[in-house]
């Protein structure tokens, strides 16, 4: 039995995710849709916190909501044209999109309800049965090279990020 507080927080986050997701893809103004996306990301961070992944939630807010969104906003402003009509959708595309995403949703829901998932395990049980993830554990996981330790991917990601920065600068610079 989960606490009422948890349930309320869950519902707020879930409803926010659903509403802002829909708004993100239906809004005609790109800047607005980027803003809605920010709300979706923040709501996701809330769920991360609720699930007990504080570090992840912090990263989500810092990197996604903080870093990536800024990039989006810059890009939108840079490529913005007055009287942009690209947000206006024609019916044909809308139907195609609805059909495809509808089919996908049906498939996913079908999978959700037919998969042998442990429906009975509640969040509270899982939180108590699982151990608290400390920063030390995360740090060890990222800096070790043993089993279930990720030094190599970590380094690879670092190099990749560096490459992306350089690549981004090279591609986007003025000629």
């Amino acid at each position, binding site marked *: 039995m989960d606490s009422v507080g948890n349930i309320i927080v869950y519902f707020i986050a879930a409803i926010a995710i659903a509403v802002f997701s829909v708004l993100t893809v239906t809004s005609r103004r790109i800047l607005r849709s980027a803003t809605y996306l920010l709300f979706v990301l923040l709501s996701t961070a809330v769920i991360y916190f609720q699930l007990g992944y504080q570090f992840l939630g912090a990263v989500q807010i810092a990197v996604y909501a903080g870093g990536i969104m800024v990039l989006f906003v810059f890009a939108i402003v840079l490529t913005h044209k007055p009287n942009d009509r690209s947000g206006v959708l024609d019916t044909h595309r809308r139907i195609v999109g609805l*059909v*495809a995403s509808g*089919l*996908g949703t049906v*498939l996913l829901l079908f999978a959700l309800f037919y998969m042998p998932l442990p429906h009975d395990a509640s969040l509270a049980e899982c939180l108590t049965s699982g151990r608290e993830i400390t920063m030390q554990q995360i740090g060890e996981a990222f800096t070790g090279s043993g089993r279930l330790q990720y030094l190599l991917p970590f380094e690879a990601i670092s190099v990749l990020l560096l490459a992306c920065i350089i690549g981004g600068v090279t591609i986007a610079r003025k000629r």
Partner: protein
Amino acid sequence: MEITLPILILAIPVCMFLLLGIGGVYMPRKVAGVLGILGMGTTMTLAYIVAFTYFFSGNPEFIIDGVRQQFQVFDVTWLAFTERLVVNLGFILDPISAMMLIVITTISFMVHLYSWGYMEHEPGFQRYYAFLSLFSFSMLGLVVATNIFQMYIFWELVGVSSYLLIGFFYKLPSAVSASKKAFIVTRFADLGFLIGILLLSFYTDTFNFISMTSNPEAVLSSTGGATFMGASVLTWAMVLIYVGGMGKSAMMPLHIWLPDAMEGPTPVSALIHAATMVVAGVYLVARMFPVYCVVDDSLTFVTVVGAITAFYAAVVACAQIDIKRVLAFSTISQIAFMMVSLGCAYDQPVEGVHYSGLGYMAGMFHLFTHAMFKALLFLGAGALIHAVHSNDYTKMGGLRKYMPITHWTFLIGCLAIAGIWPFAGFFSKDEMLAAMFSRHWFWGAWMTMVAGLTAFYMFRLYYLIFWWEENPDYKHHKPHDAPWQMSLPLIILAAVSCVAGFIPFGEFVTWNGEPYHIHIELPVAATSLIVAICAIGLATVMYRQRNEWPTRVKNMCPGLWMAAHRRFYWDEIYMFITHKIIFGGICTAIAWFDRHVIDGMMNAFAWVTQKVSYSIRGMQSGQVQAYVVWYFLGAALLAAVTWICLL
């Protein structure tokens, strides 16, 4: 016998061909001419030595107890099809091949000599002599063949030499088409020959003449009584082989090439299309004679074809304007005579027949004499053409005063071919008619009539050229006798035509090698002589001086005259078949079919592939959004399929 001489007989002409053919361009014409004549002269001498050795030496290789033997001087393997079916190249000496050696080398030498004068101013003189040498080689190789396949090899080679020589004036379209026609018609006949050889050799397992002819019954039994469409296989084989002979010897209905072949230089006509190559068919039948006798049907076929051809050619010869064409049809008729004679011979004694092999002997005798006087006539015609520059007798007339040598020699030739005593043709023709009468009176009577026609058209030709009425053009351009190189062969051949009849031919050439003493069959001789004289008389009345009789006769039945003049429309029929049906119908249709149906199928295949790929290409649009749609549709499809399967 030493093999040096026989090898030289074949080697000299072929070397001469290579020498003149390859090096001729770099030689002056005199050198080429002299080389050619010397080469042929040497060959002739050697051939005479070989032939005389064969006939007169009495060597047991050649004659045993008075019976002449067939002797293979050499016989080397050329190509082995299977272990037993081996093609050899060899040199056979027997009465007919020795006789042919003499005929070929003599005529060839005369023609070589004659051409020096006749072709003097023609371009390509060296080439001409090279081709003549090639022809002589091929013809000699043909007659000395030890096996039927060797004969086929040289048969093709003479065909090609003939093609090259007919088309010698290759800038004239008519010469080109004539040479083409000659080659293709004979080639068609050779197809029959080839299939005949295929059939025969399959059953006998040999190509060799001696093993076939020495035991013809074995040939028959080897076929095991196989039949095809009611006739025995051997009959088919022999008839098909004879078809080859019909082509070369211009029998109906494959005769159409010979008149056109007169487009070639006249000496060539004398050599190839009168004396030697065209008798190859006769020679072939004579060579295979014992085998023909086993299947009587095929021999009857030979006779019937010969009789029809002889009459047809004689009728057509009466209505020709071109003097060489008259001679060409006369040649066809005379060769048919020989064929009928061969067809009327037996290979074993028959009751009521005085000498069963008479037809064979007589046919060969006529081959010999005919070669001489027909070559003479052609060379004479050449001299006339040389003088008048036309083949057309309407451009001639009254030439006897201007060209005495030609006139007299031509007259001798005409008398010989008409069968007047004591010229050569009388003796051979008499023997032939006697043989025909001994087979059946009908053949004798029929061929006597043809002999009469022969006398008529030859003297018609003679009078129209030398008498009739002088052409007024002579005043501007006076015709004269030919130079000595041309006159000498005329005189020699005329002399031979006078005396050749007295050669005791039966002593030398008979079908089985046993000598036979020729004697004149008085009733037959008298009949044919009377018929000939009557015909000559008629010709004299009609054509000695310009008069209205020929026109009147012509007007009595203009249709017949026109038909004869147009050679009973054989050429038109052939034209229709080859051009309209084969070219226009079959070939064009097949070519169209290939381009449009077969290739069209391939192109259609390519087209469909292209269309399909164009239409599929739209899916690969490069638009990520479309891919996403496809992805979800595909995933849904897969899920649906899985679900259906799981149900």
